[in-house]
């Protein structure tokens, strides 16, 4: 069957199970958009290409499927860049299709030409410039395969406009042949045996789980392991949702902004079991003070992550789920809980006490209220900043893929477009976005997408009229000499909402918190809740409240 390459791309999408693409049209993708018009695949028109990438990423994070987005050449493609890098840092499966100027024009700096494969090379798992029409089916097949296997990640395909228009005999390959790509799923037997022995003979084992546990759908295995070996479980930011917050063994989030119990557990452990986590600098702080553990087991599908940041004596390359299933066949069970019990119980004290704020609301009180009113099915999306860390620490997340946040790259402006993708993927579930006045304004234009698509996203803005995270850093590290953090030109967010015919509620008093959250959650349709929080509220608890050197770390 002779079809155009643009049609072939859409056919390949169908074959790969793609139901929706997020995009923004332009001259170099006109053939693709014409094929989209004829296709049954849903197109969600965003208001900025970065929004398309974040929406595809939110879609992928909440479903585990490959997120797809499309943009035109030049500025369309460069606008995607932040979204692609965000997905890359968090290992999110995505396929990105960009238009390119016609093959003969490449390299001549023609209108809207940019070398997007060159630009995205450092933060795509792989990318293609598809100059030959006959390569299109193979490249599409490979791109989806690479994106969703091994350590997942974004794959970009740049297709010149004339190639999109060219006709081919379409035959979709049923398998890929990539001799340079063969990820290891099954952990090495001897290493697993060694790990089992180390666990069985340990006194104070602790699990540290990251986003890899969620990507490999290994939450059941992690739960079984933790219970059988009686180990407290700490998560990274990306690992939130990999272990139920309500479980007694849950210790919280590690890291600079993590919980006391999680950091203390890791520090005092004699055996640290790291699962699908890359042990980034924000999670470990200074690596030499990170843990006293003499044995470290690290299971990860990406061999390059093992030993990169924290040295490991039992490295296991493999998929977390498959490898844990093998591990669980061994007698890893530990009955002796005594060496750990007192310490772990001690961790459990909730170090957060409500503080008196005079200039606005207590953000943590709002999150705790919200958390108590949401079910486990609720998907919480965050932006980046103080609100993200308050949410990470105080919102109870019990299911995987229900806490959606930009971890590695820390991309402000991620939240709203990501929530678009999450809601498109999960129309029947409650989707709540927590954002700040700074982050929200970075991608506020996507309110139009929410309106156009009729997406019922619940938007909670923590408004402190300041870039709180930066302000907090300036407070601690620059003696409170604040600069460049006041957001004096903030709009009236309820007027912004009404401009898009979106409902809104504004909260300034403590007594209004509960009814407002009720209204936000119960309202049918998109709604913005603006909470005026105290600009003095910080993420790091006041020094002295828990003066443990592992808890309050300087930024390394």
């Amino acid at each position: 069957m002779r079809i155009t390459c643009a049609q072939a791309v859409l056919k390949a999408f169908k074959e790969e199970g793609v139901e929706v693409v997020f995009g923004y049209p332009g001259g170099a993708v006109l053939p693709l958009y014409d094929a989209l018009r004829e296709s049954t695949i849903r197109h969600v028109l965003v208001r900025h290409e970065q929004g398309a990438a974040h929406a595809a990423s939110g879609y992928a994070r909440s479903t585990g499927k490959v997120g797809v987005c499309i943009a035109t050449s030049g500025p369309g493609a460069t606008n995607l860049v932040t979204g692609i890098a965000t997905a890359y840092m968090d290992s999110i499966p995505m396929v990105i299709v960009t238009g390119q100027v016609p093959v003969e024009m490449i390299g001549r700096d023609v209108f809207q030409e940019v070398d997007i494969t060159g630009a995205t090379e450092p933060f795509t798992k792989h990318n293609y410039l598809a100059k030959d029409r006959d390569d299109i089916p193979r490249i599409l097949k490979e791109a989806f395969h690479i994106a969703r296997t091994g350590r997942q990640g974004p794959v970009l395909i740049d297709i010149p406009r004339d190639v999109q228009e060219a006709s081919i005999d379409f035959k979709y390959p049923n398998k890929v042949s990539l001799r340079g790509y063969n990820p290891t799923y099954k952990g090495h037997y001897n290493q697993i045996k060694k790990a089992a022995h180390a666990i069985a003979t340990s006194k104070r084992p602790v699990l540290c789980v990251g986003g890899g546990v969620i990507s490999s759908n290994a939450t059941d295995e992690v739960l079984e392991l933790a219970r059988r070996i009686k180990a407290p479980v700490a998560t990274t930011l990306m690992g939130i949702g990999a272990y139920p917050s309500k479980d007694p063994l849950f210790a919280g989030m590690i890291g600079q902004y993590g919980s006391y119990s999680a950091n203390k557990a890791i520090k005092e452990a004699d055996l640290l079991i790291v699962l699908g986590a890359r042990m980034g600098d924000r999670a470990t702080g200074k690596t030499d003070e990170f843990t006293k553990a003499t044995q470290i087991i690290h299971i990860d599908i990406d061999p390059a992550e093992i030993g990169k940041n924290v040295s490991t004596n039992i490295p296991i390359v493999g998929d977390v789920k498959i490898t844990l299933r093998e591990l669980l066949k061994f007698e890893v069970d530990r009955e002796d809980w005594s060496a750990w019990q007192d310490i772990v119980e001690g961790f459990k004290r909730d170090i957060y006490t409500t503080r008196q704020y005079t200039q606005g609301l207590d953000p943590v009180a709002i999150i705790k209220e919200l958390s108590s009113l949401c079910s486990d099915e609720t998907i919480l999306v965050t932006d980046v900043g103080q609100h993200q860390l308050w949410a990470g620490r105080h919102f109870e997340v019990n299911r995987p893929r229900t806490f959606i946040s930009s971890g590695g790259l820390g991309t402000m402006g991620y939240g709203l477009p990501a929530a678009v993708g999450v809601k498109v993927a999960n129309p029947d579930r409650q989707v709540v976005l927590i954002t700040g006045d700074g982050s929200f304004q970075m991608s506020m234009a996507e309110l139009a997408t929410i309106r156009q698509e009729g997406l019922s996203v619940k938007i909670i803005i923590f408004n402190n009229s300041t870039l709180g995270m930066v302000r907090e850093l300036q407070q601690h590290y620059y003696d409170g000499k604040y600069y460049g953090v006041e957001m004096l030109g903030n709009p009236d967010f309820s007027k912004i909402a009404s401009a898009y015919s979106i409902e809104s509620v504004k909260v300034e008093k403590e007594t209004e918190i509960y009814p407002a959250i009720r209204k936000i959650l119960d309202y049918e349709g998109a709604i913005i809740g603006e909470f005026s929080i105290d600009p003095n509220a910080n993420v790091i608890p006041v020094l002295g409240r828990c003066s443990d050197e592992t808890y309050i770390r300087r930024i390394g």
Partner: protein
Amino acid sequence: MKHILGVLVENNPGVLSKVSGLFSRRGFNIESLAVGVTEDPSISRMTIVVKGDSYIVEQVTKQLNKLIEVIKVEIISSDSVVRELALIKVGATPSNRNEIIQIASVFRANIVDISKGSLTIEITGDDQKISALVDMLKDFGIKEMVRTGIIAIDRGNRVIKVSGAK
């Protein structure tokens, strides 16, 4: 500490930029990189000399392996056959020309071009041999020099091959 890596890659456009880009963005230092096609025209082989400790070499190897178009990465042992080719244009007058030719012949280097004011010498060998010749020629005045970067192959039956890649 220097390490020599033999890297098999897909013979596609853009692979070189992916490999060299990886080195610069991860802060690895390349001392030399030589690339050419292998007995299989779909595969190119790079010989990369990296400076760094064992952590760096392990990271380089792992990160290279992550590139989809990298088929195989192996560390080549120091006792392998290691060669580099250099072309050296040296200032020469009728009075010292013979002396230069004699030095070249001691190094088993070839004179590949001759003119009234210069001689061009071609030498093949490892780094030490080339450096020694360069040192000898310095006094005559080296006008220009170009080196290929080293290529290396294991001794005996040991080969870097595609089967069982990664």
